[in-house]
Structures are given as structure tokens and as C-alpha cells.
């Protein structure tokens, strides 16, 4: 999160933080562990009232952001989701609301997403052996006035709760995005397990699912730029959320170090631990910095957006795990118990580093961009 915010951003942030403090405390997160959806519809509607779902939607479509960069504003919300390990389909709903509203500002789904009545999901990634980031094998084929989908996507967030899934599919050598109602014939959703307590995922199989071509968002075979933009948005959201999780775990561990005494003095007085906290603080500030840069660049569609977004996931994915696990280590045994809160943040970060490419895949993506630049030069 940036070291200084505009007053409107500050308000958005503090309103969300206060709401989550009250309605998503650790006890509630633990309770939702066995909840089918992982969140209560009313909680989600009230969050939507705070603006959570509107930030990637332009004003003419009923949305709106508080600064000139809606993704930066959304990153503030995502950061708070991270600090609270908060429930709710923030990422997929935001991505779909943005994508559909850019295609058709008057689409009725947009209104339902904005007010929190509906949930939607984005189906981009695929299972092994097609799990490399960007691989798309699900086929979208035009058949008269219909478009027919075949293949499997996973993990698809909140797919069981969603009314619609925006599916990324291949048509020839191009990409097509199709907005499929989840009650369409031929859709099978199998719930998955996850490290997170409140997020929910499914594997979704499309067995020749047939919808009218009007369900295509953008153009048939021409969706690649939109998909890339949505991916970058997803990365910026994941980065911000991950940093929020790191920040809270770090704060908890600092407090523990000051209050926990061993051999008659606080853990915070031991130089070996102090130096590890210094390293962690450095990783944390660096993570904030690259997450902010990524959100800024992606939101502004800068030329370096792809590189910064992947750099954020690569850095935060790796160093975030090191930070969170060192927080566990410094807590000792209590840090790996279910009753302690630390693992809520560890779970959220661990999930986020797997959803849209692992750190290794993002390192590769960055290197690929550099190499392309060099070859072009």
C-alpha cells in the first residue's frame, strides 16, 4: 500500500477495514471453514454497498472509483482482504464486472454484480497437464447462432455460487471469452479443496455447452488483449492481497517479539532475531513497493504493466512465503496450531501464489518479455 493516500482513498480504506474488523474477525473466518459458499450473501451485499464491486466498472455502467485509477483503489480493498484473510469473491467478481461492462455497459449482470446480488467467476486456468499459465485448451466453436464450449477449467473461484462464468476458450489460434450461465446444460462443477478457509473453488467441465453467440464478450477469436488485461488485473489484486496478509502477520509477530520473554528478556532484544526482523521488514516494504507499482501500471495500461505485474507475483510469492513462514518459526509451536490466527494469513498468501501462475512461472514470464525486447532491439 502506498505510504500516502488521497483523502477519498483513505476513506474507502478505513470504511472497509472497519467493516471487516466487525464482520470478518478471525472467529468468523474460522466459522466459515465449513460453510458451503465461504461467505454469507448479506455480508457480500453490504461489502458491495461499500464499493467493493464497482471499482473496475466505469461510471456509465453504474460503477465508479474514488481516484483516476480504479485498480489502485481496488488494490486497497484487496490489501484489507489480505490483512483480514477476508471471505468473499472479490477477485472474480471484479474482473468479470469490469470485462462485461467494458463490452456492454448496460448488461444486466453488471447491475446484479454491482449491488452484490450476484456472483460471477472468471475461468482462465486449466488443470494438469495444461496448467502452465496462459495455456488454453477449452474450445469455443461457432455453430450457427450458437457458440459451443468443450473442455475443463480449474480452479474456478466460487463457481458453485456464481450465476455466470466468463470462460476463456480457444477458437482457432485466437481466444474467445464467453459468458456462460451456470445453469446451462452440460456444465459440471466439482468442488475442490483448498488451503484457504473461506475461498471456494471448483473444477468446471463444459461438455458441449451451447449458448447464443450474444454471450460472447468481445469478438470471437479476438479476446487475447482483453484476457491479458484481465490477467494483469488479477495479478495486481493478488499482489495487493498477499501484501496485506504479509503485513498483518508481520505486525502480529513484532508484537509477539516485544511481549514474549525468554531467558528473562523479550525476543525483540535478541540480535539474531532482530536481524531477521530487519530482513522481513525489507521484504515487506519491497513487496508493498512492487505491488503498488504493479497496480499503478496495470490500471494506467503502462507499457511495463505486464512485466511489473509478473515481477510483483514472483517477488511477493517467494519472499512472502519466506516472511510468513519465518513468522511461524518465531512464534514456535503455537504458530502452527489451528487456534492461533497466524495461519489465516499464511493460508491466504499460499493460495494467492498459486492461482494465476507460480513465482517460477512469473519469473519465466519476465525473462520472456526481456528476451523479446532484446531480440526486437
Amino acid at each position, binding site marked *: 500500500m502506498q505510504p500516502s493516500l488521497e483523502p477519498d482513498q483513505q476513506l474507502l480504506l478505513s470504511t472497509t477495514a472497519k467493516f471487516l474488523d466487525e464482520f470478518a474477525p478471525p472467529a468468523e473466518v474460522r466459522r466459515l471453514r465449513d460453510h458451503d459458499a465461504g461467505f454469507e450473501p448479506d455480508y457480500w451485499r453490504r461489502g458491495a454497498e461499500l464499493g467493493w464491486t464497482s471499482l473496475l466498472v466505469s461510471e456509465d455502467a453504474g460503477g465508479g472509483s474514488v481516484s483516476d485509477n480504479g485498480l489502485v483503489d481496488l488494490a486497497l480493498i484487496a490489501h484489507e482482504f489480505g490483512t483480514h484473510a477476508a471471505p468473499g469473491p472479490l477477485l472474480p467478481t471484479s474482473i468479470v464486472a469490469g470485462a462485461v461492462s467494458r463490452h456492454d455497459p448496460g448488461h444486466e449482470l453488471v447491475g446484479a454484480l454491482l449491488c452484490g446480488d450476484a456472483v460471477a467467476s472468471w475461468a482462465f*486456468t486449466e488443470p*494438469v*497437464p495444461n*496448467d502452465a499459465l496462459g495455456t488454453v485448451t477449452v474450445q469455443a466453436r461457432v455453430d450457427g447462432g450458437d457458440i459451443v464450449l468443450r473442455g475443463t477449467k*480449474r*480452479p474456478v473461484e466460487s463457481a458453485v455460487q456464481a450465476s455466470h462464468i466468463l470462460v476463456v476458450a480457444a477458437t482457432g489460434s485466437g481466444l474467445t471469452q464467453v459468458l456462460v450461465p451456470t445453469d446451462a446444460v452440460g456444465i459440471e462443477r*466439482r468442488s*475442490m*479443496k*483448498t*488451503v*484457504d478457509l473461506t475461498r471456494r*473453488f471448483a*473444477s468446471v467441465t463444459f461438455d458441449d455447452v451451447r449458448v447464443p453467440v450474444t454471450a460472447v464478450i468481445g469478438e470471437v477469436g479476438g479476446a487475447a488483449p482483453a484476457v491479458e488485461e484481465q490477467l494483469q488485473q488479477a495479478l495486481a489484486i493478488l499482489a495487493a492481497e498477499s501484501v496485506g496478509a504479509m503485513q498483518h502477520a508481520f505486525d502480529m509477530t513484532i508484537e*509477539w517479539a516485544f*511481549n*514474549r*520473554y*525468554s*531467558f*528473562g*528478556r*523479550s525476543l525483540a532484544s*535478541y540480535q*539474531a*532475531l532482530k536481524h531477521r526482523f530487519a530482513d522481513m521488514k525489507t521484504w515487506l516494504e519491497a513487496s508493498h513497493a512492487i505491488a503498488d507499482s504493479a497496480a499503478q501500471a496495470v490500471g494506467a495500461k503502462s507499457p511495463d504493466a505486464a512485466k511489473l505485474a509478473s515481477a510483483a507475483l514472483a517477488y511477493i510469492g517467494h519472499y512472502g*512465503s519466506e516472511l510468513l*513462514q519465518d513468522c*511461524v*518459526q518465531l512464534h*514456535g*509451536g*503455537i*504458530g*502452527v*496450531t*489451528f*487456534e492461533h490466527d497466524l*495461519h489465516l494469513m*499464511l*493460508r491466504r498468501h*499460499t*493460495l*494467492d*501464489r*498459486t*492461482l494465476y501462475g*507460480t513465482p*517460477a512461472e512469473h519469473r519465466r514470464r519476465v525473462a520472456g518479455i526481456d528476451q523479446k525486447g532484446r531480440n526486437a532491439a
Partner: protein
Amino acid sequence: MSENALEDVESFRARAKEFIHANLRPSVGPSFGMRDVGSMEVELALVEHDRALQRALYEAGLAGVCVPKEYGGQGLTPAHQRALNDAISGFEYPGRFQAPTFSPCMAVLLDFGTEEQKQAHIPAMLRGEELWMQFLSEPSGGSDVAGALTNAVRDGDEWVMNGSKIWTTGAWWSDWALCLARTNWDVEKHRGLTVFIFPIHQAGIEIRRIEMLNGSKEFCEEFITDLRIPDSDRVGDVDEGWTVGTRWMMHERTLMNSSYVTMPAGRSEGGGRIGDALAIAAAAGKQDDPVVQDLLGELEVLELVSNALQRRLGDGMRAGTMSPQASAIGRLFHGSAGVRSGSILFEIVGAAGGAWEDEDGELAERGVDFLMRQIGSIGGGTTEIARNVISERVLGMPRERAVDKGIAFRDVPRGPSSQHSEA
């Protein structure tokens, strides 16, 4: 016992092999990540099976190889124990008895117990009748085990104990406890401790199973309230518990090289992950990915080095060219390598580390294992403590400033987070 009376190692080895091949089942592969084993019934059945295995070894003359015959052992040598370890490699064995029942608990009794205590308990351990646990760590204590707040006050021929202990493996299915408690608050930390033994299942001890974040309930916390212990169940002198404690810790650190412990040769806690890793890589379809090959190689290298290091440390300590404190080197390596190996496995799993289906086979649940990555650097003494021991005891560097030296334990700062019921 004259030395001539000793069975020679090779005939012992042959006898052990014969028994093992005829009576024990092949071992199932090692499991990592401390996953939930299932219901309490399942776990109890496993414990009963271990008791039966131990009983069978006892009856075959293969229990307590280095324990004197008068306490039910075989009165043989470490070389015999190693022969047994070789012979039992690849077979099931009573794992739950080795640590902490035989070491450190039995080892401490052999070092400090009264004749009555030894007679009462050591044969029972060897027959598989008594499973022991260490009541050592405390919720407020962390790495500072000598800072115990659990309190024992003398009352005639008895002691009355109050306090709580934590991180006891399976206290709910064990029989006896070896417990460190404070008996004097007006002297320095290490001078006011006493060691006791008592049955775990009795009024005055309440056991709570701790849920770990992966669902495992292996560990327990015990709340001790007005527990009465006869003075005859005291081990070592009053207020001299740290003399016992020092040996106790030493036995714990040198567990892997203990001659009281039966541990299939070639097995080490950190080892055996390469098979898992290859299976994961295959399930992820990445066995030919050069980056994954690099990680697989690193994992296997750490395992080979770990084995070589444990052998070196064992040889050095046996030969007396290394101090027993050098075992902290093995502990630190094990912890660090375990952390790195955990990361490597998670890397190879890829996206399925975050969300998976049961049908994912080798890829399923790996994300939960990753959440537990640090367990091998925390349990059994943290790697931080190992680094202190190595720098101060092995390399002879100046000790950390001890705020708790030279003052009565009751005056030692305990910080805002620690409450305790003091005498």
C-alpha cells in the same frame, strides 16, 4: 557379567534377522508433513499394535539391547544395537516406544532413577506395557525449558503440583510422564527445579488435544491441578532437577545415535522425500522440466548430505573427537534442509498446491504440507536454540547475556504476555 558371556554380534544379527523375517511385516513408506492419521479409534489401534510389536521383540530377546539384564534388557553393546537396526531396516517396528519412552525417559531413569524406580518401570517399558511421555515444555516457556513455571510444593511425604505442560505427543494414549517442575522460587532459575514421574491418567491431570493447522491432533496440552505425587516418585535430588535436565536434553539431542533406540538403519526423519518428489513431479507432468530436475536434484543432494552428516557426527561423538553438543549441528541441518525440501516439494506441485481435488493423487493435500513447512525447525528444540548451542558450546563463542542469572527466579522478568500461578 563377564565379557566372555556376551553373545557375539554376528550371531545376534542372525538371530534378529530370523525373528524379524518370520514375524514382522514390511514397513510402509515414511509419511511426511505430519498429516492427520484419522479417528481416535484408528490411532489407538496403532498404539496397541506398537505395544504388541514391542512385547514380541521383548519375548524374542531383542528389546533393550543395551539395557542391563537386571532391568529386563539384553546387556549387550552398541554394536549389537546397530546390528538390530540393520536387520530391522525395511520392516515395521514399535516406533512409538523409541522416543520418548526409551530415550530420553528410560535413559534418564537409568542415569538417575532409584533402584525401585528402575525395577518398577524399565522392564514394563521393554515389555510394551508402559508408554512414557515428557512433560517438559510449557505454554509460557518456548525454548527456555529451565524456565518452568509448573510448581511443586512439598507436603509431608508427598508433593502437590500445579501448572501446565504442552507439546506432549499423544499424552492421551500414554501411561507415565517424566516431568520437570519448579520447587524453589527463591534461587536462580536452574537451581530450583526437581524432576518427578507419575501416571498420566489420574485425577488432577486434564488433557486437551491441540488441533494443528493441518488437522493433526498429535500433540496435547496438560493442565495439572493439585496433583499429589509421592516423594518416592521423585527422580534425582530436590532442587537438583537441572542436573537431571541436562542429561535429559543430551539424550534428546543424541536420539539418532542412542544405543537405547531401535531405528531401522538408513531411515532418518528428514530422509526419504525423493520418492515423494519424483511421484509428485510425475503427477504434475513435470518430470522432464529442467527447472524441476534442478529441484529434484537439490532435494536428493540434501538427503544424501544429511545421511552423511549424521554418520559423521555419530562417528565423531562415539570416537570422542566431537563433543555431544555437536549433535546440535545435525539438528540444525535437519531443520534447515527440511524447510528447503518442503519448499521444493511445494514448488513442484504447482497450481495444485493452492486448490486440488481428491483425484489429484500425489498432488492432493500438498498445500497443507507446505503450511506446516516449519514444523521440523520448531519441534524438538528450535533451530534458533541449535544455533546458540553450536556457536557457544561447539565454537566457544561468548554466551548471550543472561538476564536471569544471579537473581531469584521469582524476580526474573517474564514480560506482559506471560501469566503464571506462582508459589
